[in-house]
């Protein structure tokens, strides 16, 4: 389950409270995305995500993370460190492989989409199912945003509405989608007209 402090961290009103193991869960997917972007390798990203959470849990159990407030910074620094370490190890492994199998270098050049998958096939099916249950207008905004990668300004021109209205519609659509996916109380971004 993903979400913010309201659901996954669980200490919305008291950031000085000691973190709980459940607070780590909301960082699982962001950690994968973070590591995948840096390493360009889904398997390595998954390893970094798991290891970061393990280190976080261990630090928590040893009382080294005193409050929920410092947990994100701890995880971020841990993930940065692990990515750097992983990157160096990968470079060494690649050089070793190339020494024994010169053709393997060509294989790595074809890494146009080495991120095989961010989420499981089951989760992808759930997301598509939830998308199908949105209103057509909501679904359209999400498709223009994530499939077509259109900026909010361009979507606004298509719909004949202001850019801010596009962002608000997208935010509401994502909240609806999150609810359909079973994410309880996703964070609310506040807007004023």
């Amino acid at each position: 389950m993903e979400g913010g402090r309201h659901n996954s961290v669980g200490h919305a009103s008291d950031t000085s409270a000691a973190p709980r193991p459940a607070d780590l869960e909301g960082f699982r997917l962001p950690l994968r995305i973070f590591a995948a972007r840096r390493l360009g390798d889904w398997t390595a990203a998954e390893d970094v995500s798991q290891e970061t959470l393990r280190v976080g849990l261990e630090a928590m159990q040893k009382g080294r993370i005193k409050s929920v407030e410092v947990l994100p910074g701890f995880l971020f620094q841990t993930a940065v460190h692990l990515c750097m370490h992983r990157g160096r190890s990968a470079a060494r492994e690649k050089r070793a492989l190339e020494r024994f199998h010169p053709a393997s270098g060509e294989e790595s050049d074809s890494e146009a989409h080495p991120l095989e998958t961010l989420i499981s096939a089951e989760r992808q099916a759930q997301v598509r199912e939830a998308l199908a249950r949105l209103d057509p207008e909501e679904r359209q905004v999400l498709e223009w945003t994530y499939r077509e990668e259109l900026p909010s300004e361009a979507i606004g021109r298509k719909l004949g509405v202001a850019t801010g209205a596009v962002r608000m519609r997208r935010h509401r659509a994502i909240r609806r989608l999150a609810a359909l996916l079973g994410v309880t109380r996703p964070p609310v971004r506040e807007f004023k007209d």
Partner: protein
Amino acid sequence: MTRASGCPSGGERDTALLYLAGRLSERDATAFEEHYFSCAQCREDVTRGGELREAMGRPPVAMTTARSRRTWLPLAAAAAIAILGIGTWRLTRRGSEETSSTLRAGHEILKVTVTAGPQGGFEAAWRAPSHAATYAVEVFGADGATLWKGEAREAHVTIGPEILSKPGTGTAPLVQVEAFDAMHQSVARSAPTPLVEGGHR
């Protein structure tokens, strides 16, 4: 419309979307990563966005770092080979505590000076070019293989002594610095400069 929450990357901008699409500069992407770990709203935007992108057949996140790595490494390797002779010669001059070199990179010259750092490490420093915002620093062996890589916002960086114990650093570890402006355009680059432990001889 204005945004009422305390998030600086929030409702008035598409930061999470641009991040996932690989359209932020490396500097902005890194800053946003540091932010979204602490911001539940942006973390949610990144999480749902990644899922949606993948469900719609897109890579969940574009790999800007991988692209920059592919452009940086061949340059570093080529430069390392080109100056290997000079580097080896410099490294054998064990009387000097300080060394530096310069290279015209097409736009601006960056001169890197290496001195002994704390606990047996090194301090690499350079004059800040006028439009530089960040610096990419890389240490590599004579074969061009990266041994250490980091980013700096100031015109100096400390490199730990462990670099000397890495495989392949026996003869000629080299350091190279490239400066980038706020739009992540390269504005200056140094030559690969021998990393000499000046304070230890």
